Each structure stands twice: as C-alpha cells, then as structure tokens.
C-alpha cells in the first residue's frame, strides 16, 4: 500500500525557509502571499499501513518540532 507522509514545522516555531520563500514571491510579481511554510514529503510502499505512524514518531519526523500527517493512498504505484 502506498503511504504519503507530510511533515511540517510546528506552528509557532520560526520557519526560516518559509520566511525566505515568502519574501521571494513578491519580487516575482506574486502579491498577497502569507503564511508560507516549507516541510517535507515522504512517500513509501508499506505492507502494514498501521506502521507508518510509529515510523513517524521514531524516525521520519521529530515530534518535538514537527507535525506530521499520514495519507494512505489506494493501490500501489
């Protein structure tokens, strides 16, 4: 089964990458952009989707500073 994990910096923690992107966009003519945050995407095929959350807790994310969200996709790609 295909799983997708979205990992984001926790709200309230300064995200310098997000700030840099947010400041770059107006220079390219994209106005009205705010709240930019840059995270990571991890995709994996797993036999047991129930293992994905423990994987996030232990390795894929650092729950101290990051939030994660697991999506289980239909079928294998």
């Amino acid at each position, binding site marked *: 089964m295909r799983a997708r994990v979205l990992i984001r910096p926790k709200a309230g923690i*300064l995200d310098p*990458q997000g700030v*840099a992107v947010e400041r770059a966009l107006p220079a390219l003519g994209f106005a009205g952009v705010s709240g930019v945050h840059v995270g990571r995407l991890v995709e994996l095929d797993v036999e047991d989707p129930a293992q994905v959350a423990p994987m996030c807790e232990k390795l*894929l994310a650092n729950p*101290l500073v990051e939030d994660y969200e697991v999506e289980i996709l239909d079928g294998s790609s």
Partner: protein
Amino acid sequence: MKFGVLQFPGSCDEVDALGAARRVGDAELLWHGARDLKGADAIVVPGGFSYGDYLRAGAIARFSPAMESVIAFAGDGGIVLGICNGFQVLCEAHLLPGALLGNANRRFTFRQVELDVVNRDTIFTRACTAGERLSVPAKHSWGRYYAAEDTLAAIERSGQVVLRYAAGENFNGSLNDIAGVCNEAGNVFGLMPHPEHAVDELTGSTDGLRIFESIRLSVEGVRV
C-alpha cells in the same frame, strides 16, 4: 584516562576531536558500525554531517550500533560530549532535551563566537574560572537551539544551561542564547560551537581545551 571519539560516514571533525582529547589523555576512534566502546572513560560524538544529514541532522546516526552502546553507557552515568552534529545526534537520541533547528539567519555561518560559562559546576566546565568567557569557533546551518516552553523553564531552573552566547553573539537565534546544555544527571553535554578547533595558539585560541581538561579532571576525580 581514555576518550573514545565516534566516527560516522560524513563525520569531519573527528580527527580534531581526537587531537584535542590527546592533549589531555589517550584517545581512539570508534567506528559507528561497531558496538564496542573499547573501555573509553568518556565518549565524544564529533561534528560533521553524519549520514549526509539526510532527513534531519543526526536523525539516522542516532540509530547506529555505536550509538546504541553510547545510549547504554550514558544511562549508566558514562560521560558523553556532543559537539555540533554530535549535539544534534544526542538530542535526536533523547539523551539531551530540545532540538537544533535551521539558523534564523538562513545561512551556514562560520565565525569565532564568545561563550559565557554560566554553570561551571559541571563535569564539562569545572576547569573554567568564575565568569569565564570562552572564544571558540562555530560553523553550522542547523544550530538554533529550541525546546518547548516547559522544558526550557525546567532546564533553566536546574542549571542544565551550561554555556550561553555572549551578548550579540547569538547568530543562529537559539532560545535564551543557549549554546550548550547538559542532561538532568549532568553526565551528557552538547554544544554547537567547536572546542576541539580551539586548542592551539596557532588558530587563535586555546579556550576549547577547558572542556577536555574538565572531563579529564572529572574522570580522574581531581577536585578544583
């Protein structure tokens, strides 16, 4: 006494750490794939880019066989010093509180920093004098110390904050200007700046030796 200096794929400061340790005692390199700490009295987890910093700095190194032994060693009260990437590894291993995030200035920054020794009643700072300020280089992209509010209050209360960036020196945006912290038991210590690069007059400062000398005094039971 003998230091054991870990070496991961991607470490780059293990040789300087070895050289600094050898100024105060014996030292040998310990490959990450081996569990044997070879009778070391103190372990140094060195700087660099272990496992390419993949995923997060220190996230993968933390699960190496050598680190499993270091976690057990620390649990038994063994002395562990983490420098830069080593600090990140120790935080990932939950041997130290908090985490290291991307520098607030968004840059890899390499500069000499001034550090205030705010707790000299530790295994790692007992050779320092009262109010001593150490001049040591720092070089990193991921050095912004962060801990949740309650953790931060707890480590401030218990004296676990050992080193702070002096006024105007906190380029990475660390909370409370924290440059180095120890665990509650006091036997594990991590810092972002590099004491092992400040051990010879040739490179401008020998202040980093204080940390290694403190460890030697602690291991040998010398009162200062």
